[in-house]
């Protein structure tokens, strides 16, 4: 077995991931193209009165959320650099990541809306204050919620990147040197750590931006309606029964994706141009700028508290059929929602099974690729993965559905598995690529020079040292799989039901306790996965 692993050619290592992931993905996107060629669709698009305003809104909320999340991450990381709180930060970030977006949106919404908890605490009275919080016309509450929800993701990506640097102790030494040259901890972080960190954050930031601009469920709960974000307009159009309207939705998807790609390219280009100017600031001389520990703790605490509040509110909402303004406590408690949830045991097990399997398989495919392919080929795969995450799910899933329909895979478990594998593998690849490639191969050479068989060395040295990123990637893959609704719904084609499918269909009826109960149920397994990953991934010594 060890010998076969060693003798795998690059072609053999690449084949599984290409067959199971890359090809179906590319084919799915191609399946959409004929629909875009409908002239009727483009005519309808041009006459849609909300197209441009919705587009601007999407870009503003996505961009604003990314910038805000980045600023908060920088603040937290700079403030807590080299502090003993870092592992706790990682655990908290993992918990934040595990919370499904919709769950957070509902809880956060209930916190800030005019009939929400904050209003009840501050204003009271018999009628709710005319606050413009959720569904505000500028998308600010959506932006804030997005930024808060993406903060853990950026933190984990940054911590993973920093961990590799620190693995060899180099960054610590560099910090020492910089301090000896007269730079305060804050200046050291901004001038020495951050510039080396930013390249690793490039793609996570792109993902955050694209997600923010294309998210549907959070926009439905918190975003404005006239106009809504373009993602919501697309969602309505793609959900329509009329095929021409569907085509218009696809055309809009093309517009949105092109604009996003253009913006990302432009930003990267602009950064290339302006960064040299910043060099001057880099070497302007020592600055005693201290680490913003206080602000970091405050920011982190507020973000953490908001997430915690969202979860607690969800728990309360799940047992409260009615909670009218201005009551501070729920007037009556009933577990009807949880009883209904109990009857959804089969979908829960199916979701768990799919999540575990896709995470493991994705991990296997990724490892197989990284072990057998030269690093240069990575960008094709990562590019494809980013493209997957950049397109609205409904569009990719729609193409995938047509492909699977032709192949007879709809309504089958293998088809459902493949549909879940698509986004999971994308995330696993993106998360794992950096840390895996940065692994110092000399460790393996050292092990093998000790006459240790290659597979043993691989397991006990490489995989062992890479435990944290591998487990994190697996946990993220697991969480992503648990949250999949659109691909699952399309490919299941009415034959299977997963937990998110049950949750969304029931939430369509507006039953808040039920929605909250399902949201919590959807949050629990990923949370457990992340906890397991952070516990098992802890380094043996600090």
């Amino acid at each position, binding site marked *: 077995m060890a010998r076969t692993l060693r003798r795998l050619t690059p072609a053999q290592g690449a084949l599984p991931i290409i067959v199971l992931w890359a090809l179906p993905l590319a084919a799915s996107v191609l399946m959409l193209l004929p629909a875009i060629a409908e002239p009727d669709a483009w005519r309808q698009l041009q*006459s*849609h*009165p*909300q197209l441009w*305003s*919705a587009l601007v809104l999407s870009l503003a909320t996505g961009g604003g959320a990314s910038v805000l999340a980045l600023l908060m991450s920088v603040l937290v990381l700079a403030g807590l650099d080299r502090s003993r709180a870092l592992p706790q930060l990682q655990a908290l970030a993992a918990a934040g990541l595990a919370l499904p977006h919709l769950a957070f949106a509902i809880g956060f919404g209930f916190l800030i*809306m*005019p*009939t929400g908890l904050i209003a009840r605490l501050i204003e009271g009275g018999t*009628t*709710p204050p*005319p606050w*413009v919080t959720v*569904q*505000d*016309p500028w998308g600010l509450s959506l932006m804030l919620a997005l930024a808060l929800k993406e903060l853990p993701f950026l933190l984990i990506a940054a911590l993973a990147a920093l961990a590799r640097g620190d693995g060899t102790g180099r960054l610590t030494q560099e910090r020492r040197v910089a301090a000896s040259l007269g730079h305060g901890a804050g200046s050291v972080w901004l001038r020495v750590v951050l510039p080396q960190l930013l390249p690793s954050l490039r793609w996570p930031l792109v993902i955050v931006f694209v997600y923010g601009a294309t998210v549907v469920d959070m926009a*439905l709960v918190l975003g*404005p*309606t*006239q*106009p*809504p974000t373009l993602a*919501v307009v697309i969602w*309505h159009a793609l*959900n*329509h*029964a*009329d*095929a021409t309207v*569907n085509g218009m939705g696809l055309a809009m998807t093309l517009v949105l994706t092109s604009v996003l790609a253009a913006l990302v390219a432009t930003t990267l280009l602009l950064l290339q141009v302006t960064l040299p100017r910043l060099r001057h600031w880099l070497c302007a001389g020592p600055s005693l700028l201290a680490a913003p520990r206080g602000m970091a703790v405050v920011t982190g605490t507020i973000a953490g508290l908001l997430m915690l509040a969202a979860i607690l509110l969800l728990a309360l909402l799940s047992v409260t*059929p*009615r*909670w*009218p*303004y*201005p009551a501070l406590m729920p007037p*009556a408690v*009933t577990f*009807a929602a949880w009883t*209904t949830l109990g009857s959804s045991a089969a979908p829960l097990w199916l979701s768990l099974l799919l999540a575990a399997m896709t995470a493991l398989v994705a991990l296997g495919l990724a490892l197989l690729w990284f072990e057998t392919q030269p690093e240069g080929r990575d960008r094709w795969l990562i590019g494809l993965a980013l493209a997957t995450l950049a397109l609205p799910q409904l569009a990719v899933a729609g193409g995938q559905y*047509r492909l699977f*329909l032709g192949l*007879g895979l*709809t*309504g089958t478990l293998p088809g459902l598995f493949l549909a879940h594998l698509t986004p999971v593998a994308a995330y696993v690849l993106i998360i794992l690529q950096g840390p895996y490639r940065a692994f110092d191969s000399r460790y393996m050479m050292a092990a093998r020079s000790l006459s240790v068989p290659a597979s043993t060395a691989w397991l006990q040295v490489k995989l062992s040292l890479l435990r944290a990123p591998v487990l994190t990637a697996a946990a993220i893959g697991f969480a992503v799989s648990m949250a999949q609704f659109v691909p699952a*719904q399309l490919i299941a*084609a*009415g*034959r299977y*039901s997963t937990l998110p499918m*049950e949750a969304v*269909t*029931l*939430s*369509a*009826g*507006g*039953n*808040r306790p*039920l929605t909250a109960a399902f949201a919590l149920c959807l949050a629990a397994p990923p949370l457990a996965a992340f906890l397991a990953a952070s516990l098992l991934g802890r380094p043996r010594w600090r």
Partner: protein
Amino acid sequence: METTGMTFTLTRRGLIQLLAATPLAGRARAGEAWDGIVAEARGQTVYFNAWAGSPQINAYIAWVGEALQRRHDITLEHVKLADTAEAVRRVRDEVTAGRAGSADLLWINGENFRVLKAEKLLFGPFAEDLPNFALVDVAGKPTTRIDFAEATAGLESPWGMAQLTFFADGAKLPTPPLSMPELLELARSAPGRITYPAPPDFHGTTFIKQALAETMADRALLPVQIGRQAFTEAAKPLFEFLDALHPELWRNGKQFPQTQAQMTQMLADGELLVGLTFNPNEPANLVATGTLPSSTIAWQNRGGTIGNTHFVAIPINSTARQAAQVTANFLLSPEAQARKADLAIWGDPTVLDMAKLTPEDRALFTSAAAPGSVTQPAPAIPEPHGSWVPLIEAAWLERYGA
């Protein structure tokens, strides 16, 4: 309601009526054919694609499944949908790809039905051959044969009635507005507490249709196909009304809730004064589950509110057509209809004519009032012709959308 604009469908209906009027021999043959269908249906599985947003409705469908299993050895699988359009797209895609159907029975009406019918994706006609169809109140409830001014042509079998209904907390709103002008007055006296969902949510579109019906000069235009010019003319009073209404609405009419479900939640939380729904018994249901207080009142506008029927239909590529027909027939049975109309179970009004039922069957239909039920039902205004809807939505979007 046979109107002059329906000549092309009259012939079809006429044909069906002709068939129904064949002498007893024909009847007997029809009876044998039905027995054959029931026999073939044994052991089949029906995938019933139905909106599953309400646990009560889901529980009712589960009961239907049990009954079918016991009596006809049919397995009913409830495929839960968040939106019927999912199933429409799926049927279309499957037929295009030449695949067998994943759906055998669809809970459907309106636009979704029109699309499937136009693209010839439905099996049938079958509805009027169902034995229990004879009990349907086609005279008193014309919408059982005309779906959004589109003839069902036997391609869908009626299941229940829907009618636009408003509701509120009676403690906060003792005298509800019984017309659109009265609603405007209420909005003026309580600014920011009234709203409606934004189109293309169909509740929002229905609210606008109601306003249209109440403000337009000539209501006879509604069941008829309309073009853009005529629409702009006819909708002038509607938009005058909405222009007057919007500044008094929640968020000054600049933002609207995304869905009716969200509106209901805002009403329950106390942000809004009035909610709306298409199921006249939804307010009573919500009181029963504790979502709304027991002081909730429900009403329909004095002059009538938009109402329609919802149906079940069979996709053309279904592999369990016989069982689907047996299911549709069972759904029309007095037993199933009575249980459906029971406020404690679902509360969806029946499509059957009480006069056509036996006294025992009639007794099954208890009409117990419950907190939140409509005390004074108003007549149902039939849905306008399908061509109105895209024009309404586009015009609304144009004026208020961006």
